């Protein structure tokens, strides 16, 4: 899967499933403060990532993911190696 395709897929589920506005999806946006992803939302992200990219995220991996760009990078790395 190409990088741009992965980013597009992430943006789509953030808009569809998490009801975020496209304009909010700035790479520097903080997942917690700006996008208001809370601890329960991370549980749902695990499910959505497995559905879309076929790999299971460990809860503790989220600790290092602060911004949307961090999130893109994490998914790109794991989706490509999967």
């Amino acid at each position, binding site marked *: 899967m190409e990088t741009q395709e992965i980013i597009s897929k992430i943006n789509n589920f953030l808009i569809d499933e998490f009801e975020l506005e496209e304009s909010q999806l700035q790479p520097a946006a903080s997942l917690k403060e700006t996008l208001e992803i809370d601890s*329960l939302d991370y549980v749902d992200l695990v499910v959505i990532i497995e559905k879309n990219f076929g790999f299971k995220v460990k809860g503790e991996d989220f600790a290092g993911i602060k911004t949307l760009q961090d999130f893109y990078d994490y998914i790109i790395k794991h989706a490509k190696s999967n």
Partner: protein
Amino acid sequence: MNRVVITGMGIYSTIGKNVEEVRQSLYIGRSGIGFDPYRKELGFRSGLTGILEMPNLKGEITRRQRVGMAEEADYAYVATAEALKQAKIDNDFLDKNDIGILYGNDSSGKAVCEAYDVLKDKKDTALLGSGAIFQSMNSTITMNLSTIFRLKGINLTISAACASGSHSIGMGYYFIKSGLQDIIICGGGQEINFHSMGSFDGLSAFSIRESEPQKASRPFDRDRDGLVPSGGAATVVLESYESAIRRGAPILAEVIGYGFSSNGDHISVPNVEGPAKSLEMALKDANVKSSDIDYINAHATATPVGDLNEAQAITKVFGLKTPYVSSTKSMTGHEMWMGGASEVIYSMLMMQDSFVAPNINFENPDEFSAKLNIAAKTIKNHKIDMFLSNSFGFGGTNSTLIVKKIK
């Protein structure tokens, strides 16, 4: 002791998705029953069920608020939003006051089954998602609605089988009467899916008149052959009279009596003594005579034994001169955990518009129902100043409410 009044009503049911739709259906005797062929594929003895589509809450409440809501919580949200609007309770008022919730619910079968299906397939609890736990618990309605409406008073679920909704109003009545709370959201919610009904179907308690779904639910009729499972949600806002006056809220009626009892007998077969005791206790609590009651909304679900015993209990308390009696389950099917609350709303609408909704499909009485004054057709221009509503459930739990018009 405080007087307890009803200041708001809301409903989402098989005979209407709001109070006004339900009012029309009750008057014309419209049935909400249909046939679900998938139940037959699953090996159900009966494919009959109330038919109700899910409300679309996207755009109405946030994703975070929705993901933990089971089917019955969705129904309860719609009913409660309608009731709060009628009671003139807005977000600002909710934030500044301690409002409670006592809501009837006694299962969340679909959510439990669906979570197990995912677990079997994925073998990883992390893939169940964040909402599964909140959907699976019996208190799914109270935990979700208390969060959405930011409630700060008493907050718990009443599980009492098919009397859950009625007991929730009875409990709310006591909390307000005793001065512990000013306003409580009461009601009952019932999932309508096959997941929750298979085990009940297995008891052979459901009607199998599948060729005529709308004639299948026939409480008190000689040829009844069982109940039809149904569902939805119904909410009433209970409030102290003083609070309602202070706020300028609409006072729709007053709850004046609550009776309860437990049969202490068979787990599924009702008796006569327990329900009769509940009826007598409600009349005593309301300090009224049986002759003061203008209408009885019977529990009668259309099971052979249940209706027979309720008819005898009513006759035991009311004698051979009963007020008009009807079972609205003839139209709605058995709304179970919701029924005690929805049937208070159905009776309220009859009281407001001076009619008795028909006990449809009542064609021939049996020995005991012949002693009741059953309204087989809509009784027009019948003034109701006071009604009584019965609800009985598995385990022999009984609840009776008496409500009167405010003059």
